[in-house]
């Protein structure tokens, strides 16, 4: 009898033990050694998050540069100048509407098939229909004139269209099926060998690649978060790891720290119109306090940007004064003297802000100098910035209430409250999107309803310009032309705070060349100059 009673539970325990065993089945092939750096032509990198969408450029892969598996029509060199990649040259019609691109005739995909104009046409048509995060609203049509000539027709002139040619990897028309994102075929420097979702990506040099070859024939990308990447670097398991500022000062034997400048910036957007309006969805527009230019200027001048860099990014960053510090279209005159509380107080006093009731917060009539600053709740550095700025501004008599929220929450209140945003792109179109009166209230662009006819005019001219030089001049003037502009000296619709530096622990002896200024987003773009990487010896 007794044994019978005991069978019940033991069967259960057995079943669970079996399941447990099944969970950790040993792998049959104890493959090649995983110790990093063992082979001279292989690298193990923990430098980026997993692109969960996979590697399909028509749905967004590689738009921050370096699609790795695919190549693009044009690219930026390390000075961010635009140069040919797949193209041998391009022409823009006088009205700016028709872009004609000549392609190289010697390019092959990694499966050995040639790349022709048909593939380019297919890529752009697919991307504009994909409903994903690639914005090709400007493109009217694209057609193949001959096997190596492509003609793009735009809805209206836009000089920044060139950046779409830089950011879009070309996919093969024949081989762009359902699982392309998992098994990409392209004409880029590397081809995919194995992708273990959630873990790693293994790539090998593409023998068909037409450009200069990297000395590294095999790369393994591990998908670790920054703290795990740091642990892996400490354990000597990777050749390169991206890390966060809070650990970057720690010594790691055999590794050295590489800091790369970026336009991955953080700033505060202010609603610049008075309260009262509402969007179609019913979200309120405007804020009476931030609509006062004195408040915005005082905050811009009072913030101690160096201290923010030092205190929150452990010194790994630079003060930010615009959305595009260091880019070719940046106007260096946007830099202002900051950390000047006295001047900020003067500005406020001149504008009529006074602490009449003695509570430490200024008033102007019945209006209290008080507003909410909302930030993305799960980003700790944004949270730290928001809190630190609020505490920095308090001595001025301006009370900033800090509030964390999801993007959803932010979307509901971003027209009526200050928001901590992060931007930074290789495309000056971003500037247009943030400051043009035409993009006011559209998506995440110009959520503060900023409008200045002079700025609008400069930016329209920049878009219609047919040469890059001409465009650059107008972009700069839009920021500050000596009298007005959207910089802090002008209307100050934003208070830019910091540009983050991207930090990498790199194995001693590995030379990663001179990386370009990095865009928004830590990680993948660093492989952009991989052909320059080598072992020093």
């Amino acid at each position: 009898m007794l044994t019978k009673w005991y069978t019940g539970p033991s069967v259960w325990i057995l079943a669970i033990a079996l399941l447990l065993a099944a969970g950790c089945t040993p792998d049959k092939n104890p493959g090649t050694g995983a110790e990093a750096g063992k082979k001279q032509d292989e690298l193990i990198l923990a430098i980026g998050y997993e692109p969960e969408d996979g590697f399909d450029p028509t749905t967004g892969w590689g738009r921050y540069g370096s699609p790795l598996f695919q190549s693009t029509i044009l690219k930026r060199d390390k000075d961010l100048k635009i140069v040919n990649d797949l193209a041998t040259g391009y022409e823009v019609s006088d009205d700016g509407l028709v872009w004609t691109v000549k392609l190289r005739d010697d390019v092959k995909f990694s499966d050995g098939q040639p790349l022709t104009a048909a593939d380019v046409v297919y890529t752009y048509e697919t991307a504009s229909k994909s409903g994903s995060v690639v914005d090709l609203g400007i493109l009217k049509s694209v057609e193949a004139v001959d096997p190596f000539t492509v003609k793009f027709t735009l809805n209206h002139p836009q000089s920044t269209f060139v950046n779409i040619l830089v950011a879009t990897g070309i996919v093969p028309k024949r081989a762009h099926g359902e699982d392309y994102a998992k098994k990409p075929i392209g004409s880029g420097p590397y081809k995919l060998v194995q992708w273990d979702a959630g873990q790693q990506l293994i790539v090998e040099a593409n023998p068909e690649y037409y450009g200069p070859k990297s000395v590294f024939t095999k790369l393994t990308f591990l998908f670790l978060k920054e703290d795990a990447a740091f642990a892996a670097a400490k354990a000597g398991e990777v050749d390169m790891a991206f890390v966060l500022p809070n650990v970057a000062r720690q010594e790691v034997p055999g590794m050295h720290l590489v800091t790369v400048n970026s336009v991955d910036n953080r700033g505060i957007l202010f609603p610049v119109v008075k309260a009262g309006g509402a969007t179609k969805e019913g979200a309120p527009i405007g804020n009476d306090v931030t609509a006062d230019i004195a408040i915005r200027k005082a905050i811009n001048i009072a913030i101690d940007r160096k201290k923010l860099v030092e205190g929150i990014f452990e010194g790994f960053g630079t003060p930010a004064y615009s959305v595009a510090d260091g880019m070719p279209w940046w106007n260096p005159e946007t830099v202002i003297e900051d950390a000047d509380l006295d001047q900020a107080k003067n500005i406020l006093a001149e504008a009529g802000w006074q602490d009449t009731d003695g509570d430490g917060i200024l008033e102007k009539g019945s209006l209290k100098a008080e507003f909410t600053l909302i930030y993305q709740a799960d980003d700790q550095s944004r949270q730290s910035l928001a809190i630190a700025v609020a505490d920095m501004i308090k001595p001025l008599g301006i009370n900033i209430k800090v509030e964390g929220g999801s993007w959803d929450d932010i979307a509901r209140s971003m027209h009526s409250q200050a928001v901590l945003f992060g931007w930074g792109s290789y495309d000056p179109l971003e500037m247009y999107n943030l400051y043009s009166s035409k993009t006011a209230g559209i998506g995440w662009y110009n959520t503060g309803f900023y409008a200045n006819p002079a700025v609008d005019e400069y930016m329209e001219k920049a878009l219609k310009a047919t040469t890059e030089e001409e465009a650059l001049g107008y972009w700069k003037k839009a920021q500050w032309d000596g009298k007005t502009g959207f910089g802090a000296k002008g209307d100050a619709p934003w208070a830019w705070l910091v540009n983050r530096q991207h930090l990498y622990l790199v194995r001693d002896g590995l030379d990663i060349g001179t990386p370009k200024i990095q865009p928004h987003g830590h990680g993948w773009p660093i492989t952009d100059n991989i052909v320059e990487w080598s072992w020093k010896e």
Partner: protein
Amino acid sequence: MNRRQKTILIMLLAALLLAGAVVSGLTLGDERVVTNLDARNASPSLEHPFGTDHLGRDMLGRTLKGLTVSIGVGIIAAAASTAIALAMGMLAATMGKAADAAISWLIDLFLGVPHLVALILISFTLGGGMKGVVVGIALTHWPSLARIIRAEVMQLRSAEYVQVSRRLGKSRWWIASRHILPHLAPQLFIGFVLLFPHAILHEAAISFLGFGLSPHQPAIGIILSESMRYLTSGMWWLAFFPGISLLVIVRAFDTLGENLRLLTDPRSARQ
């Protein structure tokens, strides 16, 4: 010292602890937790007994404010949960077999989903924030107490004086309010005291996972989840002190509840 005296002593201690945390948390000025980028990551000292965090904020101040939030949530949620348990237990015991079966089925349903998973779902439904946490805890913690109340009510209903009242033609409401509720009061109170530490623990857990309060607000769970980022840098004080403060409060109320329960439990009379 007998159990009664001991229980009273614990009750005093627990009340003192609670009042101390809440009063200091509420009266503490904001200047105590203001950022000070020059005094970041300081280990415990006389000036900052619990150390400071990555923005130079005083951890003692943050812990006290965090405890106040947790205690507030705990009391509201536990009270709501007790009320639900009372309603459900009474219904099950007085409304006939069908209601009893239905409520027992409902209890099984609520016990079927692990608390934390249910809390995540409810928090998602309410779009996050404090109300998600309070409603979530209130909705998930009532079943066990409801069972106890049901049993108690069943027993009371069969008691002689209730039978007499019924035969005298007193209304259900009259019986419930005059006979049943007064007898349930101690059970309800103990149930509440026992639910309270659970509610605090779950509040801390769910805010630790990132649901609930905004991450700059000083809830214990949030402080602890922040401390995780600094584990490798050896800043032990960020996690240690807030956690142990929470533990002390929870333990005090657990002990109190347990002692109260034993006091009223006839089975333990022999001890």
